[in-house]
Structures are given as C-alpha cells and as structure tokens.
C-alpha cells in the first residue's frame, strides 16, 4: 500500500475561515456560538447555534458561481478551495486530472429543502421553483468541489450523517493508498436549518448557549454548520513537489450499531476503535490524543468515555471535544475533528474542551484538556465520529518522520 499524507487544510467554520484563523482559535479555545441569524429562531426556547457569520463565498471561490449552488455546496467548495491553496495546488493544474473529491453530509442542501417548504406553503407542491429543485440533490456537494478545483477524478457525496466526513476521509485514503489517485480532497459540509434545530430540541438533546462535553452538568448539543476539507496526497507525490506535510493518514475503521437509530452503543463504538487501530497498524498505547465525537449530550459522552476505557484500559489518552467551540457541525463535524487532529500532530498541542468545569464522577478517567490548549507531542491520534443510523467511523493520523 502507498502512504497517504495530509498536505492541505481548509476549514470554513464559526471559529475561523482558513487554517491560520482556525488554528489560533483552537489554541485559544474560542467559542463560535452566536444567536441564530440563518432562520427565525424566535419561537424556540434555545436560540443559539454555531453559524459561519463571515461567510462570503464570492470572495473565496474562483470557478463556480455561488448563486448556482446551495449553501452546503458553497461551504464545501470554499473549504476545498482553501485546502488546495493551503496545499499549494493550483486548481485545474495537471495534478487535478485524476484527483477526486469525497464530501460527507448529514442533511445535504437543508436550506434548499426549507426554501421548497416555504414555496409549498405559498403555492402548494406545484408552486415549488425549478431553480430550487435543481439545487436540491446532495450529490452536488462533491460536484461543487470538483467544479471549483477542476478535478477530473471521482466525485462522491457520502450521506452517513454525523460521521460522514470520516467516511469520506476513509474512502479518499483508500483511493490514494490503492493507487486510484495521487490526490484526493475529502471532508464534509452542512448548513444550519430550522428542522434539525427543532428535532434535536424535541429529542431533549439541545442545550441553550454553551456546549459542555464531558462536564458533569452537560445538557446537549448546539446545532452548527461549516465546511471542512483536507487534501490527501500520496507521500511520494507530496515529496516530489516539496509540499509541506501536516501528518500521515494511518487508516480508518467503520462499522454499524444495527441496534438503534439515535442512541449510541458502547460495545460497537469500542469495536469500531479496534477496527481503526488494526487497520492503522497501531496499538491503543500508541495513541497520544483522541479527538472525541463529544457532542455534549448525556448519553453520547458517557457511552464514548466508556468505550474509550474499554479499549484503552485504566489510563486513557487526553480526550477533547472541539464541539465545545464549534457546536455540532453534523456532516462536517469529523472533518473539523480531522483538521484539529492533524494540527495537533503538526503543531504539537492538544485542542481543548472549553466550557468544562466539573468532572463527571461517571467518567473520572477522562482528561478533557479543559479550557485552553496544552503543548504536547502528538505522534498518533484518533478522530472519532458517530452518527444517527449507528454509522460509526474513526480515522487515525500519525506524525511524519
């Protein structure tokens, strides 16, 4: 198998657009949560989310016309443009002839769906606009990336809900490792929407203003949005062009709970970690840092913490959740986790869990890296992603010699 490295990062997030801004926010432990502007949230008891407030796609993309694409596709295309730029790859260059795009998502063009509902309310289903219907298919998230970067390889959109970015990174890793492509752009995108905010609220899984993963008083997620992209490149290809290398992708694990659509399962999450470690050729003791799924719900964090202990034993690696800063960016979440993990390895620090103050007596083994980041040598790190439908996916990254 060929070795696969990360040579470019493109975060479009509520805590920063572009790798420099994202990195400084991660180090400082900045919150991206703000009052919701994307839809009328006045009827909701909880009115905060992690929206990308300064998102101006027309200032980032060069090839696609943002108006022809839905909000999630715009986020994906911008993230990919920034990642390619960060990797020093000129869109449309020779590298793009066989390069592909794999983008994960939970709700695809959710804001387009809500536009269609508005049109239905006004004029029935017959009143839906053809322009909106054309922007609806979720496949367009990866197509926007392919179009923006001039990629002629495979373009694929994975809809495995909140672990979708890890699914995407895993598949893109396989494409590069097996020789299908030298370069793949992988990540995820989702947009805030009214229906997801309502659904999580009704599940009792939505907190008010602060997401507090692993804290004893945690009370839920905050809905959020963003686009996350990573450039994965064959190691020799990267070396030949003198590319800066952040980290190596060591492998990934996927499995399915096949038990409950919404509730996570400790045993299967532990099994997924073991698959990821085996595929990556590492042992639990090699892992220096875990980027947790860490949604901040009572159930997820406890199940995840127990699964970690089941796999790692009494001493578990520092485990933080960047959802404390970003909120839950759904299909983009494990993409941001992968970017944070990659930066942790390259820059030698542990991203923090903010809003954490009280240890949960049910998971005393968890070190959440509370408050602000901590300098640390990170040789190997794992990035957890779990989802509705029981779609567990974990990616593993390592330092490059």
């Amino acid at each position, binding site marked *: 198998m060929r070795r696969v490295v990360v040579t470019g990062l493109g975060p479009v997030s509520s805590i920063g657009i572009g790798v420099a801004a994202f990195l400084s926010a991660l180090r400082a432990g900045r919150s991206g949560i703000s009052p919701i502007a994307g839809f009328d949230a006045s*009827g*909701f*008891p909880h009115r905060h989310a992690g929206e990308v407030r300064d998102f101006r796609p027309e200032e980032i993309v060069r090839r696609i016309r943002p108006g022809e694409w839905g909000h999630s596709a715009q986020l994906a295309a911008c993230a990919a443009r920034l990642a390619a730029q960060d990797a020093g790859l000129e869109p449309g260059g020779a590298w793009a002839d066989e390069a*592909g795009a794999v983008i994960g*998502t*939970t*709700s*695809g*063009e959710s804001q387009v*769906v809500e536009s*269609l*509902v508005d049109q239905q*309310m006004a004029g029935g*289903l*017959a009143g*839906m606009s*053809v322009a909106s*219907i054309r922007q*609806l*298919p*979720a*496949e367009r998230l*990866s*197509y926007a990336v*392919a*179009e923006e970067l001039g*990629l*002629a*390889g*495979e*373009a*694929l*959109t*994975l*809809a*495995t*809900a909140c672990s979708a970015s890890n*699914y995407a990174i895993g598949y893109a890793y*396989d494409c590069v490792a*097996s020789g299908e492509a030298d370069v793949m752009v992988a990540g995820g995108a989702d947009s805030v*929407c*009214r*229906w997801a905010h*309502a659904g*999580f609220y*009704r*599940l*009792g899984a939505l907190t008010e203003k602060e997401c507090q993963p692993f804290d004893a008083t945690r009370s839920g997620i905050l809905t959020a949005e963003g686009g996350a992209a990573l450039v994965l490149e064959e190691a020799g290809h990267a070396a030949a062009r003198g590319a800066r290398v952040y980290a190596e992708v060591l492998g990934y694990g*996927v*499995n*399915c*709970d*096949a038990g409950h*659509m*919404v509730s996570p399962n400790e045993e*299967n999450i532990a099994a997924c970690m073991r698959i990821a470690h085996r595929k990556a050729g590492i042992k639990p003791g090699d892992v220096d840092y875990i980027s947790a799924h860490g949604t901040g719900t009572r159930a997820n964090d406890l199940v995840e913490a127990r699964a970690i202990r089941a796999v790692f034993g009494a001493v578990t690696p520092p485990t933080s959740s960047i959802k404390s800063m970003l909120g839950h960016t759904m299909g983009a979440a494990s993409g941001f986790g992968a970017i944070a993990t990659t930066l942790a390895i390259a820059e030698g620090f542990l991203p923090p869990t903010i809003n954490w103050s009280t240890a949960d007596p049910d998971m005393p083994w968890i070190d959440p890296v509370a408050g602000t980041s901590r300098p640390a040598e990170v040789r190997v790190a794992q990035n957890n992603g779990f*989802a*509705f*439908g029981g*779609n567990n996916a974990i990616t593993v990254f390592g330092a490059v010699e």
Partner: protein
Amino acid sequence: MKITGYGLLTAAGSTAAELAGASAARADMSALHDDLPRPDACAIPGFDIRAELGRKGTSAFDRATGLAIVACGRALADAGVQVEAPERVGLVLGTTEGSLRSTMEYSRETLVQDRPYLVNPVLFPNTVMNCAAGQAAIWFGLKGVNATIAGGPLAFLQSLRYAGNALDRGYADTILVGAVEEFTAHRAWTAELAHGGPVGEAAAVFVVEKDPQDRTPIAEVPAVAAGFGQGQGALVSCLRRALARAGARPEEIDLMATGDLPGERAESDAVTAVVGRDLPQAGPGDRFGHCGAAGGALALAGVLGRLGDGELAVITGRAADGAVAAAVVKGRGDARADRR
C-alpha cells in the same frame, strides 16, 4: 466482485427477466395522494409496509425505508445469505436526498405547529439521508460497513464502486448494495417540474461478495470507474478506464445499459466511441419513470436479464453537473433464469 443474488421491487415486476422484457409500467396512484401532477406514475401501487414487514417496529418507517428493507430481505433470501457473522456483512445504499417527503414534512411542521419545536421526535431520523440504510441494518442485524451514497442518477454505480472498494480493503465479506427511490407527491412534483415526466419508484438491492464460498455467482463486476468533467470526453475516458481495469477489450462488449432517455444519445455515443460500434441497449430509458438513484440499479437488473454466460456489458451514468460513472459486468452461469 461477484453478484450472488438480488431483490427487486419495481412497477414492472420483481425479477431481472421481467424487467428486461417490460415496456412502460404505469399505475394509477391517485388513491395514495390527492395532490398529484398526474394520476399515473411508474410506482408500485400495492406496496404496503405493514403487509410486507408487519406492524412491529415499522410505525415510523417512511416508504423509502420500507422499500429498502423489503429489497434487502429479498436479496439476502435470493443469495441464500444467513447473517452469521454480522460484523462482516455491510450495506451500501444509493439515494438522491433520502426521503424528500419525510424531510419536507418535518420542516413544514416547524412552520404550522403552534411552536416551531412541536415536531415528532420519533420521526426525526427519517429526515436524515441514511435512515433507510440504518433501519435496514437494524432489521437484519448488519454490523459491517454501512454507507449511504447521495448520487442521484449515479448513486447506484457510485455505491457499487464504494462496495467494491470496501470488499477489496477487507471491511466486509458480503455487502448488500442497492438504491431506492420512493413514490410520494413530493417526488411526483419535483419530477414533473424539473423533468416534465412521470416519477418512478423502485428499490433494487444486490448481494456482492469478493469470494463467495458456498454460492454460485450470477454475474461479476470486474470494474467500476468514476470521473467528472463537462462534455462527452469525461464519460469516454471513464469507460476506457473501466475496460482497462476489467481487462476487457472494446470488441468484447456485447451489451450496454446507459442512462439515456428516449431521444438522448450522450451516453450511448460515448459507448459507441469507445467500443467502435452500436450495441444493443438494456438501459431503463423512460420505461420506469424518473427513478433517480434507482435508475442505475434497474440498468444492472436489465443487464442481468439479458446477459448470457461469459458475455460482457457496460453500464453508464451521467449527472447534470458533469459526474460520470461506468461499470463492466460479466455474465456468469444463467443470470437470465427466473430463479423464483
């Protein structure tokens, strides 16, 4: 990878042979919805989730989920797969945007209820595109790789490619790979407004294995390739890559199943450019309506219904934005036989 069984639910029947020989299959669906653009659709009029799956555990299922589960069940039975090692059995399912009806109705509830949050929490997972795959995994206890591919007209070929990779990389020994599109008023209207034609409904699931131990394959899929680009060149080069990977020469191809609608030649022209002659067409055309993600799965079923032992077919797909995919399929044994 090798195909060892399949399950089909279509307006034209449930076997490859029926599908291969079917002409336009329309049914009056006005009993199901009163706000349709036209009374008839290429849908499955008698499909009833409770009649197929019983009442227990099915109350939250939308039609797409019900169709997917029934198709998975038929595929498992057809191949004779007993799920003995659940973690080695996966599922890869193609879609366009999940259940558009479930999602739009959920969003609509946030506008019409007294408070925007007075939605039904039980139905929330139905708004997520991986609902059908997640519920099917629960129904049959499939704990291996579970992926949902949002690819619209390409979703099935993309799913087939994803499944092939997952088998090659050891993530499962057996994978159910398919695609589903449900009949609803929402899809009837989007098909009518965007394409000006009747909507189609279908679910097709195939059992694929890298190295089936106790089952005789009905066909092989030696290669699936994918690419992106504007103009005919993207599909031409994608087809060439698929043939090269399959080790097949252009003159060996006997049959094609393209996504062309009547009057369209974009895909079949690309096939002709690559193989050097016109091939018989096994694609679904418009016989089954606008089947979205299920279109490619119907193309494969149509191919299985016509492909003799050792014969080779190509299946192609093209999306409006420029994505392309092509698969090479080789007949094995008697795929044409109606095995039920």
